[in-house]
């Protein structure tokens, strides 16, 4: 990717960063749509021989040879038996029965995680610079389990098993499905075995935001990644006939609109269909849009598809209007006609202007790439939000990473919009989603793993979470673009990843397989359900009291008593949590502090100070929360920080009633 390494503070010469040799020992497996191996981002120049631990290989198939692998792309496989069983044999004239990526998504995620540095990367001149993965010397193994018709769990599970057996270190999965109990959740089950074998599993949180409780990939042994913006925009301008000017976003690169103002219309008024405002295929009346710029509402179909619908009906430009659900979030697309996306406020103003009936006119202009945009990051509107709909006692997402307008490698099979009619071939594309934030985190986890090969997946996750930041340099909380207001741990989890800080966290909240089994016991899982989840025999002790909140997790989610309806009297409830910190730094004394903005909440940490004398020394503490009862649905937040003056080890605390 371009820009995100700098945005994340990954300077080339930072002395904390692992060497290229130690990075080269880390293997990132991605379960996705495959890989386009000819890209320069998979160049293996300067890489050491493949680690001797590696058991994988490059599987041959349609337009894919074992020679497509090298010291960067060290493994490539495909899994299609489940897909073919449902949809019939793969039509090899349209889809490669091989690890080759016909979609682009898998190539984008792989290069984001660990692509080699490639100069002069850009998409039609946008976002130009040197593109590199987060761990540019780490190895990539691509497991194709996602096809044009989707990703089926039998194939995903087979891919996970292979990746685990072949000894990847990090497993990156930018996919999600419906929520189910952990023992019926294929990715959760596969990730448990991966965790047991020391593999960190990083998954996308989902793009169902900003609705609350919209997350996927919820298991506590998974690292669940939401998405934020970076300090880069692709501004486009919509100028109205009355002189007003609105800033939007676009990656359009073709012939500009004529310099004169053009007639402007709203798709909802140029269609006889009830959902005409979305510019669905065949919905626009040619006589109403011919020669005009058309305002289309976001949603219903793909954003770039709307431009084609407008063009087919005779329109010459398109304004993609955000609705309430998208707020002010601007997602740039490589439209095939002059087009720009606009935030909710601007979109509403333009619709009012059109309704005013004074022969509305407009034009659209494009001004390339803007850097240094502030504030950044902001939480992406689409990023799925907490609370955790399955286990409210575990806070999810775990953290956020860059996921908006990310430039990374692309397939040679389809153009940047992915539309059939898009014949443009590009080596890089700019796309958005928690799919993009997940491999950022996977690559950063690879850096931590390279620096600390002995750390468990839980320790790596803890390092990434407890060093994440929640405020800008001016002290103000990271904004949620969906509302324009300060975001909360339900939006960003522990905060935005800060990889350099994560390399030296001071302390970690480690967790063992037994801790996760205890968590399953706390869920009251039967022995069969535990066996499902863990693929092993474990039993819960009848003499032990298991508590969900006692999982040694780097964040806290406190569920409290609600005030009964029609009762004014507030009852006080008290909850107690135990956590254990492991020293991974020098001997030091850490002091606890809690920041909370709600007077009715009391948080007591005991002891208030912990001294560590040796490496890997463990110390436990308790957090006691007392709170008045509140109406159901109320939430509040705090942060617990342990600091020795050099390190800050911070955990979010989310309270829900």
């Amino acid at each position, binding site marked *: 990717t371009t820009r995100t390494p700098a945005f994340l503070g990954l300077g080339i010469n930072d002395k904390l960063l692992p060497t290229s040799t130690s990075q080269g020992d880390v293997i990132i497996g991605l379960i*996705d*749509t495959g890989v386009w191996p000819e890209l320069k981002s998979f160049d293996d120049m300067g890489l050491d021989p493949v680690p001797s631990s590696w058991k994988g290989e490059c599987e041959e198939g349609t337009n894919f040879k074992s020679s497509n692998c090298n010291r960067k792309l060290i493994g490539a496989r495909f*899994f299609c*038996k*489940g897909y073919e*069983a*449902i949809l*019939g044999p793969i039509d090899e004239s349209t889809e490669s029965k091989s690890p080759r990526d016909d*979609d682009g*998504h898998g190539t984008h995620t792989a290069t984001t995680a660990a692509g080699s540095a490639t100069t002069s990367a850009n998409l039609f001149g946008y976002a130009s610079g040197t593109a590199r993965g987060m761990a540019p010397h780490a190895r990539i193994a691509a497991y194709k389990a*996602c096809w044009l018709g*989707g*990703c*089926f*769990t*039998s194939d*995903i*599970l*087979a891919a*996970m*098993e292979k990746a*685990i*057996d072949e000894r990847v270190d990090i497993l990156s999965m*930018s*996919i*999600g*499905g*419906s929520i189910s109990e952990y023992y*019926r959740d*294929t*990715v959760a*089950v*596969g990730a448990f*075995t*991966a965790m047991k074998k020391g593999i960190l599993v990083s998954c*996308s*949180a*989902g*793009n169902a935001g900003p609705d609350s409780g919209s997350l996927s990939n919820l298991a506590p042994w998974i690292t669940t990644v939401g998405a934020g913006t970076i300090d880069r925009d692709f501004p486009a301008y919509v100028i109205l006939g009355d002189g007003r000017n609105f800033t939007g976003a676009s990656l359009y690169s073709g012939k500009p609109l004529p310099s004169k103002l053009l007639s402007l219309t709203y798709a909802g008024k140029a269609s006889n269909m009830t959902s005409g405002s979305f510019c669905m295929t065949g919905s626009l009346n040619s006589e109403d849009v011919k020669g005009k710029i058309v305002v289309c509402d976001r949603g219903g179909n793909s954003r770039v598809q709307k431009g084609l619908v407008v063009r087919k009906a005779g329109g010459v430009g398109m304004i993609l209007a955000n609705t309430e659900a998208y707020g002010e979030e601007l997602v740039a697309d490589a439209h095939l006609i002059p087009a720009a996306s606009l935030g909710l406020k601007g979109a509403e103003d333009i619709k009012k202007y059109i309704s005013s009936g004074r022969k509305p006119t407009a034009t659209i202009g494009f001004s390339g790439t803007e850097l240094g945009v502030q504030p950044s990051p902001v939480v992406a509107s689409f990023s799925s939000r907490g609370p955790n709909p399955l286990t409210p006692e575990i806070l999810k997402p775990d953290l956020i990473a860059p996921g908006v307008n990310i430039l990374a490698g692309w397939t040679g099979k389809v153009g940047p919009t992915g539309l059939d009619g898009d014949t443009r071939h590009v080596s890089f594309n700019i796309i958005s*989603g*928690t*799919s993009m934030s*997940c491999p950022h985190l996977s690559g950063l986890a690879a850096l931590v793993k390279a620096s600390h090969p002995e750390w468990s997946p839980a320790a790596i996750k803890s390092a990434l979470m407890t060093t994440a930041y929640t405020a800008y340099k001016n002290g103000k909380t990271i904004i949620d673009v969906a509302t324009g207001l300060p975001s909360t741990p339900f939006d960003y989890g522990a905060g935005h990843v800060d990889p350099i800080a994560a390399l030296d966290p001071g302390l970690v909240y480690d967790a063992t397989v037994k801790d996760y089994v205890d968590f399953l016991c706390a869920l009251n899982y039967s022995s*069969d359900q535990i*066996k*499902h989840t863990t*693929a092993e*025999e474990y039993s819960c002790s009848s003499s032990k009291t298991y508590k969900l909140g006692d999982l040694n997790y780097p964040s806290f989610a406190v569920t409290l008593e609600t005030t009964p309806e029609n009762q004014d009297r507030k009852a006080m409830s008290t909850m107690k949590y135990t956590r254990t910190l492991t020293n991974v730094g020098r001997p030091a004394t850490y002091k606890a502090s809690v920041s909370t903005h709600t007077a009715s909440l009391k948080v007591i940490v005991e002891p208030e100070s912990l001294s560590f004398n040796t490496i890997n020394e463990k110390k436990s503490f308790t957090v006691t929360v007392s709170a008045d009862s509140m109406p159901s649905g109320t939430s509040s937040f705090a942060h617990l920080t342990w600091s020795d003056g050099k390190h800050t080890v911070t955990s979010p605390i989310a309270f829900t009633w």
Partner: protein
Amino acid sequence: KAENKHDQLERRTYIVHMDKSHMPASFEDHHEWYYSSLRSAADSAQMLYTYNSVIHGFSTRLTDEEATSLENQPGTLSLVPETRYELH
């Protein structure tokens, strides 16, 4: 194509979790045992994958009746219907 369509209507893909501790001593290899369990519940069903580490079991396509029969076989922990995941 017609066969596929028929198959689609009749069968669903399941991920079958097996309890290896229930494998009868007469089987030397758990694959054999999985295969035998599947055969006794569903004559013509094919295994898509066998899973050895991530879970113990296999995936296959079964009719409702076959699924019920397999579920009742000793050593079968559960049948989880396949779901479709999406790119994020």
